[in-house]
Every structure is written in structure tokens, then in C-alpha cells.
């Protein structure tokens, strides 16, 4: 059964009661929330995701809920609870759907050390993965959304999960987080894309989430071979430019963008080395999405 098999009313009933067991790739989240916007976000953005039987195993037990005190009513807030504890400060109530997304990222990036986890977007075509390791503001989610809108498979816009045993990438497709001007850029670039409601005044500015393609969700069990590592940088008005960089240097930069490289020790080094083995690596600056996508799509397969 998928989320779309539940009526919005039934979904709200379950969320505010026993909860849903939502499968996102290899992870299961037991989610409870009495908040209507969280339910609406699931209905819109998670329609194609499988639901498991109630009471089954879950990796994360999550609740997104308002506080019990006066802040429920005055300047209302929302909390994210993981296993009954709140790892973050509360956010304004309007940001509840975004908090669920950020909280789920936290769950995986802080607990799933069976992977080397890179802060990177990753998409795939013909079995080859293109990875964009970069800090916020570099345009990686915009590029990711653009490529996905042109037929590339979404593996993740935020967390690249590198398998320790062979350096391949396991998918973790979720709604793509678009911020500020990139929201309108994608609206124009892909007019048929489904984008969730705008969440204003977050620490990242305005945020809206792009629904992942159903095919990407359905193929969440298919790993991909790393082929290109791209370090993007958005430069307004500039033509796109790819500059090759040596793999060892790229290795160090990818390592800087991981959540748990130091924690994993030699296993992390070996996994990242295997990951890099089959890649070509580039600096990439761009100022216009259509040109950028055309240049990236024309990259030949890695010769390694």
C-alpha cells in the first residue's frame, strides 16, 4: 500500500493516532503528527511512497507536534521528537512540514553509520551517478531538481549514502528542498513539476519542496555506480564551465562534506576511495540552469 491509497481524511486520522510506517528507501519511519499541514505535505509529496503494516519495525520513531504549553496558542510552535526526545529547538508552527523533512535528514545523517554519508545531491542516468557535494547556497539542489526534471533518477538532493562494502551509492529519494529564487527557477524550468506550499521565514529563507518522480521512488532499491563528482558554484550571469580536478584532491573535498568520515575511520577511507575510483571530478560554475543541464548531460561516461 502507498500513501496515495489512503484518503486525506484517513491519512490525517492515522497520523494523529497510531501513526504511519513510512518507507523511504531502506529506512522505515514511524511518524505521528496531529498537524494538518504535515498530513497535507505527505499527501502531496509522498503519494508514491510505500506504507508498511502498523506496528511493524521502524528505524525512527518520529513525532511532529506542537508543545503542550501556551506556545500551542501564542506564537505557536512545533517540535520534532525522535524516540520521545527533541534534538532541535522548536520552530514556528507554519514550518512543520519543513521540520519533518529536516528532522528526517537528521535521523539518517546522525544514526545510519552503515553508510559513509556525504552532504551531496546525487542523480543517476544509465546506471551512472552524478554527485554534487557542496555546502548550502552552491546550487546543488537546483541542479538536482533540474536534472531530475529532465529524466535523471533522483537518489537524493541532500544525503548521498555510500556503501561501506563497495563504494556504490544507495538511493534515499525524498522531496527536493528548493530555496528562495531556485523555487521560481524550477517552476519555470519544469512547469509540470509538483511543488509543495511555500514555507516563509525559515533560517534558510523561503523553502518549498519538489515532489520526487514516482519512478525514482519505485527504484529506491537500485544502487548506482559513482561516475562524476561535480563541485557546483552558482555565479549569476556566467556561462557554465567545467574544470577537471585530480581525484585525490576531490577525495579530500568530498571528505570535508561528509557527516561521519572521521567516525568511520579506515572503513570510511576505504569506502570513499572505492567511491572515487570510478569517477571523473570537476569544478563547475554556472549561471543559467538550462545551459548547465545541457553541459552536464553531455559529459561522457567516466573512463575509469
Amino acid at each position, binding site marked *: 500500500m502507498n500513501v496515495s491509497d489512503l484518503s486525506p481524511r484517513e491519512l490525517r486520522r492515522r497520523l494523529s493516532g497510531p501513526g504511519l510506517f513510512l518507507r523511504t528507501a531502506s529506512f522505515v519511519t514511524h511518524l505521528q503528527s496531529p498537524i494538518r499541514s504535515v498530513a497535507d505535505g505527505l499527501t502531496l509529496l509522498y503519494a508514491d511512497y510505500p506504507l508498511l503494516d502498523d506496528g511493524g519495525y521502524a528505524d525512527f520513531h518520529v513525532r511532529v507536534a506542537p508543545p503542550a504549553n501556551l506556545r500551542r496558542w501564542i506564537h505557536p510552535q512545533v517540535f520534532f521528537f525522535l524516540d520521545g526526545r527533541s534534538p532541535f529547538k522548536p520552530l514556528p508552527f507554519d514550518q512543520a512540514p519543513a521540520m519533518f523533512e529536516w528532522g528526517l535528514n537528521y535521523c539518517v545523517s546522525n544514526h545510519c553509520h552503515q553508510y559513509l554519508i556525504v552532504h551531496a545531491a546525487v542523480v543517476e542516468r544509465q546506471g551512472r551517478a552524478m554527485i554534487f557535494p557542496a555546502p548550502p547556497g552552491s546550487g546543488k539542489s537546483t541542479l538536482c531538481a533540474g536534472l531530475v526534471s529532465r529524466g535523471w533518477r533522483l537518489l537524493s538532493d541532500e544525503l548521498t549514502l555510500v556503501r561501506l562494502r563497495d563504494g556504490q551509492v544507495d538511493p534515499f529519494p525524498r522531496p527536493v528542498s528548493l530555496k528562495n529564487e531556485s523555487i521560481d527557477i524550477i517552476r519555470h524550468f519544469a512547469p509540470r513539476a509538483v511543488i509543495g506550499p511555500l514555507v516563509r521565514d525559515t533560517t534558510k529563507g523561503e523553502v518549498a519542496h519538489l515532489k520526487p518522480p514516482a519512478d525514482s521512488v519505485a527504484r529506491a532499491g537500485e544502487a548506482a555506480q559513482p561516475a562524476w563528482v561535480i563541485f557546483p558554484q552558482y555565479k549569476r550571469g556566467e556561462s557554465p564551465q567545467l574544470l577537471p580536478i*585530480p*581525484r*585525490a*584532491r576531490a*577525495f*579530500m573535498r568530498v*571528505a570535508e562534506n561528509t557527516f561521519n568520515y*572521521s567516525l568511520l*575511520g*579506515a572503513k570510511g*577511507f*576505504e569506502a570513499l*576511495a572505492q567511491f*572515487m575510483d570510478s569517477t571523473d571530478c570537476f569544478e563547475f560554475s554556472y549561471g543559467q540552469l538550462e545551459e548547465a543541464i545541457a553541459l552536464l548531460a553531455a559529459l561522457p561516461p567516466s573512463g575509469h
Partner: protein
Amino acid sequence: MLPLSSLTAAKAQIWTVPSGAGLVLRHWDDEYLAYSELTGQTHLLALFPGVVLTLLQEGPSSPAELTARVAEALQLEEGDTLLTTVEQTLADFERLGLVEQNPV
């Protein structure tokens, strides 16, 4: 300047990668990566230090022996200049906790 006896003693040292260092090396093209389980650090190395460390990882060596092997591997001319460069490289590695020296 070091007295002659000290210099002779220094050159008689045997350098080695400590058995517990957990040193892992990888290289692509002309650059190397060295990971030390002992320190938890990853180092990006140019070709020359990468080759020095690779050769030392194969077994303990004196600076003179190591210099001869480096010269052969990189097609360089053996001599005091190369020996000095190898010794400086070993000293850098020692500061990073990648190698150690033992008396003969």
C-alpha cells in the same frame, strides 16, 4: 651545524612505518592519499612523498637505502641532495605520526 658524529648517527637510523599505525595508501595519477588509523588523519601527498611513504611501507629502511630506492622508482639521480630531501620528508612524516625511527 651538527658535529660529524651526530650526523653519522642520524644517518644510521632505521625508519619504519609503525606496525600499529594502520597506514593505508591510495594513489591516483601523481597524487597520493595516506590514512593513519593511529591518528585518524588523512593526508594528501604529492608524488615524491607518496613514493617515499609507499617504499617505506614495504619495510624498514635507512635513509641511504630509501634514497636509492626512491631514485630508482622515480628515475632520479642519487646523491646528497636527494638524500637530504628524503630525510626532510621522513622528518615531516615523523611530525605527522606516520613514521618513526629506531636506532640500528
